[in-house]
């Protein structure tokens, strides 16, 4: 892949090879901290930052490391970027840092990051690698935010609550979807809710894919019919 196809990278990262919906990687943070939009967005951004940074660094040193020390080197790089992210969050979004707790250092064990370092960044030039990290991070973060939104609406009846944790004091975007007297639906808040919502999202993605597939197949039949008119020459 010397000539990186940015369109293809975008498509795989966001949809056809989405880390959360297709590769099913990084499910631990996906399920644990997707209780609300702000938590999901916080962890999504942190993961994306690490992903972009590690992809860039791995791509830069890809000719220097040998096969034998490849994985330790990648893990060191990822750990370094995770530590940077952790320190950044500690400095700028301290409350969110406390809420996400152990899941920020645990980004280092997120398989998406090591997976992309190994599968993409170690074989590609720097710019495509950075772009791949960005797209994979976006795909992961988007799923995280959607799950967070669904669980927040079902679980607490709010949307975008506590956004000041991420955007600074004075920002209040809280929407009370079902009014003020919504009794919290604890199953959605607890881990089973995350599993169910993630499962439904995967089902929705598969349904969309198969609909597209069916439409494409339907169009092909029309093409076939027009060929039958030809009586000479090659009929495909």
């Amino acid at each position, binding site marked *: 892949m010397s000539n990186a196809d940015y369109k293809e990278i975008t498509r795989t990262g966001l949809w056809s090879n989405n880390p959360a919906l297709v590769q099913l990687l990084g499910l631990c943070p996906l399920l644990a901290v997707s209780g609300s939009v702000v938590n999901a967005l916080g962890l999504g951004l942190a993961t994306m930052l690490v992903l972009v940074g590690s992809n860039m660094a791995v791509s830069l040193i890809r000719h220097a490391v040998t096969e034998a020390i490849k994985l330790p080197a990648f893990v060191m790089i990822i750990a370094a970027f995770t530590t940077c992210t952790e320190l950044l969050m500690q400095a700028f979004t301290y409350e969110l840092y406390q809420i996400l707790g152990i899941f920020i250092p645990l980004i280092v064990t997120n398989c998406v990051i090591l997976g992309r370092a190994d599968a993409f960044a170690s074989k590609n030039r720097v710019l495509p690698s950075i772009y791949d990290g960005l797209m994979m991070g976006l795909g992961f973060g988007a799923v995280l935010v959607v799950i967070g939104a669904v669980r927040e609406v079902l679980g607490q009846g709010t949307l975008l609550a506590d956004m000041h944790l991420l955007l600074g004091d004075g920002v209040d975007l809280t929407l009370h979807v079902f009014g003020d007297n919504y009794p919290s639906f*604890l*199953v959605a808040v607890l881990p089973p809710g995350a599993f169910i919502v993630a499962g439904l999202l995967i089902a929705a993605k598969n349904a969309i894919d198969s609909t597209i597939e069916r439409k494409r197949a339907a169009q092909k039949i029309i093409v076939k019919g027009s060929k039958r008119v030809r009586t000479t020459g090659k009929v495909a």
Partner: protein
Amino acid sequence: MAFLRASSPHTHNPNTTHRVMREVLLATLPGVAVLTWFFGLGTLSNILIACLFGLGLEAAVLKMRGRPIAFYLKDLSALVTAVLLAIALPPASSWWLIGVGMIASIVVAKHLYGGLGYNPFNPAMVGYVVLLISYPQYMTLWLAPENLSVQGAIFDITTLFELVFGGLASTTMDGLTAATPLDVFKQTAGLTAQDIYAQKAIFSQGLFAGAGYEWVNIAFLLGGLYLLMRKVFTWHAPIAMLVTLALFATVFYDAGSSNSGGSPLLHLFSGATMLGAFFIVTDPVSSATSNRGRLIYGALIGALVYIIRVWGNYPDAVAFAVLLMNFAAPFIDYYTVPRTYGHKKAQRATHTGGQ
């Protein structure tokens, strides 16, 4: 005259799903009647709302799945799930509470796993546990039996409407609800069993296991015996559950001291014991399949019910015990494959080596 030769088996089985489900619905009637007698119209409103949700959701999901709607609605399985959940919920539950429970039962526990016959977990119990975990503030309010409550209130239509369709003020609620016998027994750890029976109204008004509750359980026991007589299920799972529960209760009765876990009669005839034993544990889909398997399955449910009731956080435990054992049912089946006629010894369900 043509000689018709049919191959074996020559017996034919009248047990259609429709017939079995109809029998189960019939067998709940005594229990429902006694529940209504003691706890008011709330039981009936529960059943009505749950059935409406059950049929509506079942039809909607069947339509989405592209299955014949009338055919599956006629097997009555959605109604059985609805009735069982409605009986398990506190009488006069809010309509939306029942709705959420039915969505969890019919849509999640039943159809997301493939529909009738494919559900690894008992749908009614999934609905119940989802509600119990999500809305403890509503699920732990059980109406008091008629003679302990504000006289006549639970048979009053306006009160019923307020309970089901609007939030009733909490002071009114306090007058209508009371702790269940199992809850009372759990909360009064310092008293001997004799004192509890003498001091607490719920026990002193009753005969042996709490006013009202004992009769509800006897009614469900009768319904269960009817089903047993009609050969809807075998005796193995329910009897194993009841015997184990009674055994545990006897061992830990401790002569009714302040450490007592409660008498065997209390455990057998209070809470959801009989409903669970004859209507939930016997679910043919989510339980073990062989007779030996059902003995183990039922016995472990009985043990779990006692363990969670006495040493756990919840006063009653049938739903949790059943769901836990639903997990284990395939595992039990694996080790209890019956000997096939003509074969020497029973084999495990699957084996890796070629024998």
